[in-house]
């Protein structure tokens, strides 16, 4: 059942006025006035074009914006109160905007959207990021149609990206989720996705919302819960990924949200994933790996330096986490000069798995384990960038694919480490 304390009285009143819907589109926002206007217009256009007869609602879960975000969203409503000259719509399209109680966090916003989806008995729902740079009306169709026609329970996006972007996703999250949960979901951490009403109820029942991970890593968690509970997961191509202004310094928070959530989920869903042997492809609409290749300057040296200093300074921490052979290997490659340095795939896989197992046993604080992984990931990033410096899109893809195979091949290694005492 939806937890009522998530919904304020005012929000509940608005939900009462909306009534039952077939489609719900959620927008979690916090001070996004610069970008949310085109997004909500694209959603409105998408709904009118692709679902003209369905009862729909655009729902904004706002964390207390002060820049007029909520007003911008309410302007997209279609009703008989305001006369809209160019819009031809069969039905009223409510756009409700309500603040959730608490500090602004995507986890809380998502939980509000899920609760509303359950109370309004929506059949198909989608969450769209208010920071999308080129929103298209077609996104609504692509995310919702598989669910509305009852072929899928959860739809994840795929993006066109530069070959050097999203390396954490391609080097760790995608291969590891694929190897562990057995489904080839390219973007397990999605800021845009679609889900069915039934799945919303299931999400709400999970006992994660009171944990830290429920607040910071909710997007990733939804994907993992779907995979773990055997739902039908599809993926659909949306377009160019919005280039969000994020510096490499934000690596640690990003890792907390994604890698931390992934590791956390291994505890809860162990009975499910431990028996999965091979990964299966999932139903995909559109191109799976569209990469752009324009030249971009990267500061590889810095990554190398941080890797080296990390291995050097953090060895007492690593000795609590990694096995001795692995740590020795790492120290060996750290001693190599930059030109010869290489972080081989197999070592990276072992590193990742040992970290996962160590997270499970938590000899030290779990947050520290995640932070400790960051410098090692930088080393891996260095190697990946070097190897794909002049690569074409297909070559990049085959690199990623071979890394995935390596993760799958070494899964028993994870299981061994998981069960052994340390």
């Amino acid at each position, binding site marked *: 059942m939806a937890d009522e304390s998530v919904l304020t009285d005012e929000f509940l009143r608005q939900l009462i006025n909306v009534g039952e819907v077939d489609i719900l589109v959620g927008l979690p926002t916090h001070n996004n006035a610069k970008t949310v206007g085109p997004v909500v217009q694209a959603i409105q256009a998408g709904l009118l074009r692709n679902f003209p007869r369905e009862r729909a609602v655009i729902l904004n879960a706002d964390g207390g914006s002060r820049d007029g975000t909520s007003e911008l969203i309410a302007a997209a409503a279609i009703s008989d109160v305001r006369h809209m000259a160019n819009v031809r719509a069969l039905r009223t399209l409510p756009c409700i905007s309500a603040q959730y109680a608490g500090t602004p966090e995507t986890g809380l916003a998502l939980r509000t959207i899920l609760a509303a989806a359950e109370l309004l008995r929506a059949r198909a729902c989608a969450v769209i990021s208010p920071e999308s740079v080129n929103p298209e009306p077609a996104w609504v169709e692509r995310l919702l149609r598989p669910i509305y026609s009852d072929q899928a329970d959860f739809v994840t996006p795929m993006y066109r990206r530069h070959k050097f972007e999203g390396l954490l996703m391609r080097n760790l999250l995608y291969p590891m989720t694929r190897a562990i949960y057995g489904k080839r979901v390219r973007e397990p951490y999605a800021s845009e996705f679609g889900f069915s009403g039934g799945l919303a109820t299931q999400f709400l029942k999970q006992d994660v919302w009171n944990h830290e991970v429920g607040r910071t890593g909710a997007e990733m968690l939804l994907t993992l819960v779907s995979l773990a509970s055997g739902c039908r997961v599809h993926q659909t191509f949306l377009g160019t990924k919005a280039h969000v202004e994020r510096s490499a310094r934000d690596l640690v928070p990003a890792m907390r949200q994604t890698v931390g959530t992934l590791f956390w989920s291994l505890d809860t869903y162990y009975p499910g994933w431990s028996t999965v042997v091979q990964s299966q492809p999932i139903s995909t609409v559109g191109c799976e790996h569209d990469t752009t290749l324009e030249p971009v300057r990267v500061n590889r040296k810095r990554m190398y330096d941080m890797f080296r200093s990390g291995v050097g300074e953090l060895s007492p921490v690593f000795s609590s986490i990694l096995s001795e052979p692995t740590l020795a290997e790492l120290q060996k490659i750290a001693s190599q000069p930059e030109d010869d340095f290489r972080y081989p795939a197999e070592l990276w896989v072992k590193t990742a798995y040992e970290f996962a197992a160590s997270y499970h046993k938590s000899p030290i604080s779990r947050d520290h384990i995640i932070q400790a992984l960051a*410098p090692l990931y930088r080393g891996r990033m260095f190697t990946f960038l070097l190897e794909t410096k002049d690569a074409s899109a297909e070559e990049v893809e085959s690199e990623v694919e071979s890394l995935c195979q390596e993760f799958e091949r070494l899964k028993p290694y994870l299981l061994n480490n998981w069960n052994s005492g340390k």
Partner: protein
Amino acid sequence: MRDLIVNELSLAYHEFARELARLLPRLIGMVIVVIMGWLIAYVLKAIVRSIMRLARFERLSDNAGTSQLLNRAALPSSTELLSRFVFWVAFLGFILLGVNVLGIVGLQEYVARFFLFLPRLFVALFVIFFGVLAASFFSRAALLAAVNADLPSARLLSNSIRFVIIIFVVSMAFEELGIAEQTILVAFGILFGALMLGLSLAFGLGGKELAHDFLERRLAHRKKEEREDELSPL
């Protein structure tokens, strides 16, 4: 005259025997108490050990880094150590109780004082243990943050934090135990003050450029070289 000596001696002997006879039950009582005490202390030790195991104390102390410390000093594990400590404290307590039973007046006061001292001892140990835990946690947090933020001499920062916290905690423990209270207090105050003063001088004067760069990086526009590295990880 021989008879007198024999008489006195036998009187003294009788006196002694009587005293002994009077003392004997108390002595027996003391032995009983001590034996019982040993048994109880043993049971207590076993109980403490199982509680520790249930509470996964070992892991906590691993976390605190005390296991490594003990290992290096060739001492047994912390659970073992703690349970043995409990054993000996309990046993000692009972011995003293036994001595009390003996009824030797002067000793009773000392016995009382010992028992009064015990809680403070436990508190001090408690403070030290959790202090070490906190020191290890915060020093590790600082280390990781520094490494990930690419700050130089991360190890130094981490160790200094650990050092400061340990010193602080030990001072607190000593104060609790009442050992050289004022000395410790003053020494700590001087040390801490000097440390802070030194740091501010160093940072303010010597590290002027570094501070300037640091602040600039944080608050003003970033330099172009750094922007190259802005690949989004997700």
